[in-house]
């Protein structure tokens, strides 16, 4: 039987695996992203490609070493290199001597029905719909719980307790195959999190919004666990980018994108690829909602985010909100990130204290 695999991106593996398994396929999740994954990607990927391509490549190699032979990859169009990742990766993997089939999910995919049939066989709609519903439900619940994690690490009663609860949750949800069971653990874990909330670590509430390129925003390995670092510094984090929100946009199920573009209009009117315009629009929204700061995350050399990075200083000034732009590549280190985050949090705390007139040194 064919073994399906796909790259990691945050916890996307859970719902995607559920989808294919409930259709009766065998799924092989690549080993968790590690130093080794990155090393493989850096070794075989083009030097100037951005970090996501390298990690995806490492994921594929590691999964194929374990026996995967059908690769699923995202594609795209527009002024961002992501659109040709799948092509580049295919060539590299072929050169390395692997044998596989690859299936690229991109706009207009349904027109190419024969290819789908060739790879996956004939699957009736009546089977696909319930599988998709189940996977979708999982993804939504995972987002809900994760939103709570992001908000509440800043005031957890004991260090790391929220992450422990969250890890238990991830383990439990992985194997659930009914909508009811998923509902049930949603309320179970929301309660658990609610019970572990105490005082703000910084003594005051600090809210920061995350914007940027989707892979960097969703994958903790490449963003060096920035959300956890912020949480431990006493910051409540919010973001707008989730797999579900991206899919809603991709499938034209939500009006969110129009709102974002409307907010960005004053600073950027054109689509620049990736999530460039979202970074601007969402920053404006966070400022309007009274957030204390915004952090932008992107891979080094990411064109759409470089464009927004150059616009963000004016947004910061006009909307009166501090912004920290962070670009990551395989050389990014924990220490440098920690220093910047601590300084950013200090800056926010002092700003707030200053408003209340309690500034000493």
């Amino acid at each position: 039987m064919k073994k399906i695999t796909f790259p990691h991106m945050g916890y996307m593996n859970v719902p995607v695996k559920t989808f294919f398994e409930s259709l009766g396929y065998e799924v092989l999740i690549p080993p968790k992203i590690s130093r080794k994954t990155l090393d493989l990607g850096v070794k075989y990927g083009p030097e100037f490609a951005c970090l996501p391509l390298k990690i995806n490549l490492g994921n594929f190699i590691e999964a194929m070493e374990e026996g995967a032979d059908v690769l699923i990859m995202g594609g795209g169009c527009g002024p961002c290199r992501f659109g040709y990742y799948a092509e580049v990766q295919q060539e590299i993997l072929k050169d390395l001597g692997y044998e596989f089939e690859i299936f690229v999910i991109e706009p207009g995919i349904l027109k190419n029905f024969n290819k789908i049939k060739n790879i996956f066989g004939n699957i009736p709609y009546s089977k696909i719909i319930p599988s998709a519903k189940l996977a979708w439900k999982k993804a939504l619940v995972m987002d809900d719980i994760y939103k709570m994690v992001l908000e509440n690490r800043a005031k957890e009663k004991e260090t790391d307790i929220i992450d422990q609860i969250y890890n238990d949750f991830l383990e439990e949800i992985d194997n659930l195959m009914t909508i009811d069971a998923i509902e049930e653990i949603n309320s179970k874990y929301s309660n658990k999190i609610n019970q572990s909330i105490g005082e703000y670590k910084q003594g005051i509430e600090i809210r920061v919004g995350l914007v940027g390129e989707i892979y960097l925003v969703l994958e903790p390995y490449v963003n060096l666990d920035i959300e956890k670092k912020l949480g431990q510094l006493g910051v409540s984090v919010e973001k707008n980018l989730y797999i579900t929100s991206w899919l809603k946009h991709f499938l034209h199920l939500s009006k969110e994108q129009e709102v974002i573009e409307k907010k960005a209009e004053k600073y950027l009117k054109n689509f620049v690829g990736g999530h460039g315009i979202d970074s601007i629009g969402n920053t404006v929204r966070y400022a309007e909602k009274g957030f204390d700061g915004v952090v932008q995350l992107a891979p080094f050399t990411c064109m759409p985010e470089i464009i927004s990075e150059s616009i963000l200083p004016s947004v910061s000034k006009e909307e009166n909100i501090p912004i920290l732009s962070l670009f990551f590549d395989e050389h990014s280190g924990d220490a440098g990130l920690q220093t910047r985050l601590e300084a950013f949090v200090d800056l926010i705390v002092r700003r707030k204290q200053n408003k209340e007139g309690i500034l000493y040194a």
Partner: protein
Amino acid sequence: MLDKNKENSYFLGVDVGSVSTDIALLDYFGNLITKKYLRTKGQPVRVLQEGLSSLKKEYDEINILGVGTTGSGRNLAGVILGSDVVKNEISTHAVAASKLVSDVQTVIEIGGQDSKIIIIRDGIAVDFAMNSVCAAGTGSFLDQQASRLEIDIKDFGGYALKAESPVRIAGRCSVFAESDMIHKQQLGYDLPEIIAGLCEAMVRNYLNNVAKGKDIRTPIVFQGGVAANVGIKKAFEKELGEEVYVPEYHDVMGAIGAGLLARENILYKKNKTKFKGFDITDIDFKTKSFECDACPNKCEVVNIYQDGQLIARWGFKCTKWEAV
């Protein structure tokens, strides 16, 4: 209670970086009494102990009210000293600059390995940036070039001031700058012209990469080890068209800031100091690191031992080594 002892009561600020370890001794009111600028040479613990013991010798009656540490070795130093405040180097530099120049709006800081810009308004930092990948324009790059040109780094700036018309050196990154500099040397330009050109290239590089998009306003304070270099200072002034102010203790501003924050912590927040005392100079500290091979991450885990006992540990990505 504290007031009685204002006379011989001090605050200690320590900045442990990869190149230098700086110690600042502040009086009760936060004024600098003495400073030490030591080479870290890969042995932060030894250097720190030596620095403290020489401080102890100079002041026989010395009452430390609080300690702050900063720099890339801030956690290490914090554990060893029993520090009250462990702060990142951006915050400490901002605090120190505001104390010395009360209306400062821009801080340019260039040290051995890092360079940063801090934007300050009404006494608080509102924006900052740090060099990320490129080491061009830091102290170690200048050291290298000085030795390549066979001059003492101390004379570097003096040469630059003698230049009549600096040559233009491509300064996009350290590799470009270096090869272009050699090229200009081969073309027969005089040393002062080349050195001044290099200073200007460094400043352009800093302004285009680190300070890019930042709102630079006066007063501008230039601090860090490189601020001693009059050639770089002049190049900044030429490029910005503004006066650049170098504080007297520009090389230990991080340590001063750490001391000031410790002072704030003790005097205003009324905390009690955790300082372990000068005896720590006799304690046997050891750092040992090993590569964890329990998973493909292969983390470099660092252990700190005090008299053979493990007191701190970091460097791991999972929870495996959390318990000390």
